[in-house]
């Protein structure tokens, strides 16, 4: 039988996808619910809409940590 | 740059030569009533102002012996000082009211002016002088709005015949207008007793890419004005408007005012003559005898 689920389609580059999956795994290790509902392909994921905001914020932080920066002139 | 932001400046030059209008009023075929023409002109001017909040306006009367700004009024004009006397009624838009009042009262002043009654001024109209004022005013508005582009044009309502002595100033004005890409539109009345063919004005509109229109039916003036002369310059690429193909670029000779095909031009002062002579009457140069 055909199944229809509501969620959020997430499109991103493969690198970001790895980070997202890593976050998902960490969440599961911590005993929380996974938010990736379906791994569609290289660049697409289907995720839980409730976690979108949290994910965006988290991802922003991680990307920020990995950004090279020089100190702006004070 | 979008043309929606441009400031549109319309300078209207109205021929108010009393003799010509008197003749026109008594024309058997197409009598012209000055008051009615001015009424229609005022509606047209209000229409121009209503198109955009920023639209600018100048009206100049080209009278028999002078040119006179009808709007805007010169600063510190007595009319301005007595501002609060006739308070604006609630059913008129302030801008329209100011323009109408200024034009009407200034015109009255002109008509009552006794000086113009003398015979020597008959049938003269200071179109060149009015153009010079209009261009100076346009120049001022352009300078005052250096950051915005100002689209300017001039509309001449003309009834008097050309004044040969004004040929050079008229042409100077035309070239000055061309330099700042100001179009000169001409709305010309002609009947049996007035108007007649003008040589200067078609050249003015041709050189500046303006519109020249002979009004065949003066009672419908307003429709002609709204159809042909209301669209601002930026609209001329969009709307189909009348244009005159054949423009007479022949010159009139300085000696007899005949229109010539082939003429003789003084190499020093460029005066045009219809026949050979020994001495140039304009610059007094003596020519060598033709070999």
């Amino acid at each position, binding site marked *: 039988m055909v199944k229809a689920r509501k969620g959020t389609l997430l499109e991103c580059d493969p690198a970001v996808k790895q980070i997202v999956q890593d976050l998902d795994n960490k969440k599961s290790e911590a005993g929380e619910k996974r938010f990736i509902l379906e791994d569609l392909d290289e660049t697409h994921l289907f995720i839980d809409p409730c976690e979108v905001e949290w994910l965006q914020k988290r991802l922003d932080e991680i990307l920020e940590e990995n950004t090279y920066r020089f100190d702006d002139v004070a | 740059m979008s043309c929606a932001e441009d400031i549109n400046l319309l300078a209207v030059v109205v021929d108010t030569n009393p003799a010509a209008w008197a003749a026109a009023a008594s024309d058997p075929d197409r009598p012209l009533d000055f008051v009615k023409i001015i009424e229609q002109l005022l509606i047209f001017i209000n229409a121009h102002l209503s*198109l*955009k909040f920023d639209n600018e306006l100048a009206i100049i009367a080209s009278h028999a012996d002078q040119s006179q700004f009808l709007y805007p009024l010169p600063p510190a004009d007595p009319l301005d000082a007595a501002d609060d006397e006739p308070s*604006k009624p609630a059913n*008129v838009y*302030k801008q329209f009211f100011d323009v109408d009042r200024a034009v009407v009262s200034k015109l009255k002043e002109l008509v009552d002016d006794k000086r113009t009654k003398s015979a020597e001024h008959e049938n003269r109209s200071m179109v060149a002088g009015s153009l010079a004022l209009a261009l100076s005013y346009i120049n001022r508005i352009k300078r005052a709005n250096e950051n915005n582009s100002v689209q300017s044009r001039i509309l001449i309502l003309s009834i008097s015949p050309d004044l040969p002595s004004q040929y050079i100033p008229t042409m100077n004005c035309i070239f000055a207008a061309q330099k700042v890409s100001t179009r000169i539109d001409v709305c010309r009345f002609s009947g049996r007793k007035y108007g007649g063919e003008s040589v200067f004005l078609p050249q003015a509109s041709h050189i500046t890419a303006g519109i020249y229109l002979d009004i065949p039916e003066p009672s419908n003036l307003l429709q002609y004005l709204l159809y042909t002369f209301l669209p601002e310059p930026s609209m001329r690429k969009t709307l189909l408007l009348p244009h005159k193909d054949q423009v007479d670029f022949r010159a009139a000779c300085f000696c007899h005012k005949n229109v010539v095909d082939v003429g003789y031009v003084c190499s020093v002062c460029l005066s045009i003559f219809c026949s050979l002579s020994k001495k140039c009457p304009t610059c007094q140069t003596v020519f060598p005898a033709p070999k």
Partner: protein
Amino acid sequence: MSSSAEVAKGVTNSIQEYLQSLPRQTFDQLYAQPATCLATLRLLPPIAKQVVMRLLYTQKPVAKADVEVWCFPDHRGDLQDSLSKLSRLHICTDYEEHLQMNRIFQENFHNALVGGGDHVSFGQPMNDNKGEVDIALLDRHAAESWETVLHQLVGTPGDRRPKAVTKLLLASGLQEFPDDGGYSETNEHQKMNITSKGFQFLLLDVNVQVWSLLLQYLGLAERQLNMDIVQVLNFLFQIGSLELGQAYSVEPLTDTQRRVMEDLKYFGIFYQRTKKSRKFYPTRMATSLTSGSMVSSRKPEDSQGYIIVETNFRMYAYTDSPLQIAILSLFVSLQARFQNMVTGLITRDAIREALTKGITSDQIITYLTAHAHPELKKQSPILPQTVIDQIRLWEMERNRLRLSGAWLYSDFTDLNEFTQIVNYAEPLGAVLWKNEKRRTLAVTEEGHENVKSFRKRAAAARAGGAGR
């Protein structure tokens, strides 16, 4: 580059959209006021204005074919757009192949032009013999009031918090209550939070801000305050035609209109010397309301640009207004403040902070451009290209995720059914992602309903077919 023109267009469009949503009868009532006719005309695109002028003194209907040849062939499309706009605003009506101008509009616009008719739509002026109110005072009043509103929006502590302003800011979604609290009548001074929409609002041009609030007010007036929308609109269009510095009488106004005036006073649109005064003064904000392009191309002296941005991302702003500095600090890391200027750096962090608040790079660029110093405006483009590009890049690097609400269809038993649905949904633009091998399909939220009903129909047909 004319970003302010685009902004102006945006406002014009939103007013037009609002007007178009009104029923026909409302228009007939609206056009009974010449001032409204004049203001509506100024909202129209240039070709439409010319069409109106040409038809104004034509009594008989005009054949559409005749109107079409007014334009050069390559501009016919623009003409069609204009004509449809005219008919949506009920200025012109189509009768089959003919165009007929709305009689009421025709008559009253003519009245506006010649100053005829028995109406007071251009305001009843009053003599101000005492001469206490001059334009400078009005400008100051308008600027102060509006700044108070904006301060209230950003949440600067202050004591003047008129209810009308609070209500409108809330209704337009520029502010909201913090989640924990709730609205309570007793605590009016309760702190409200600015929303991301509010931040965006701050960066708009003043005229645009005024109009977007006024449109909210119109909505509010109709739904909650039970006001006659025609009277409100007529009043708004009327004040756009008044003259700055002139006193006008309150007498001809209706009760509704007086209430509107009362409400809008806090926004600096009017000035009244005392609350019970018989006259009111429109401020520059009022008189430029219907200035054609809405954003008057000529601004008063004091609202000239003050920002200079250099290619090295340094920003200098010649201002001492706490509000402007507060707005700038949204996306600039300010470094030093002098008596008449502040300096700062446009940094990645500052821009990122702004982006997290929901402000977009376009809004930042528009704001900087609109308020650029006249010296800077002489250049083209006005802002250094490097800065524009970098701000855009900073925005893009944040958006590495593209999210869209979706419904995921999976576990199709039958490839046929899958392709059937794909074929149905694809032309609708509803398919976000599909994989034939896995027989999985993601459709948009909007498309979901259609797809659902299509599946039902298909299932019914199949069932019917099978049953037969």
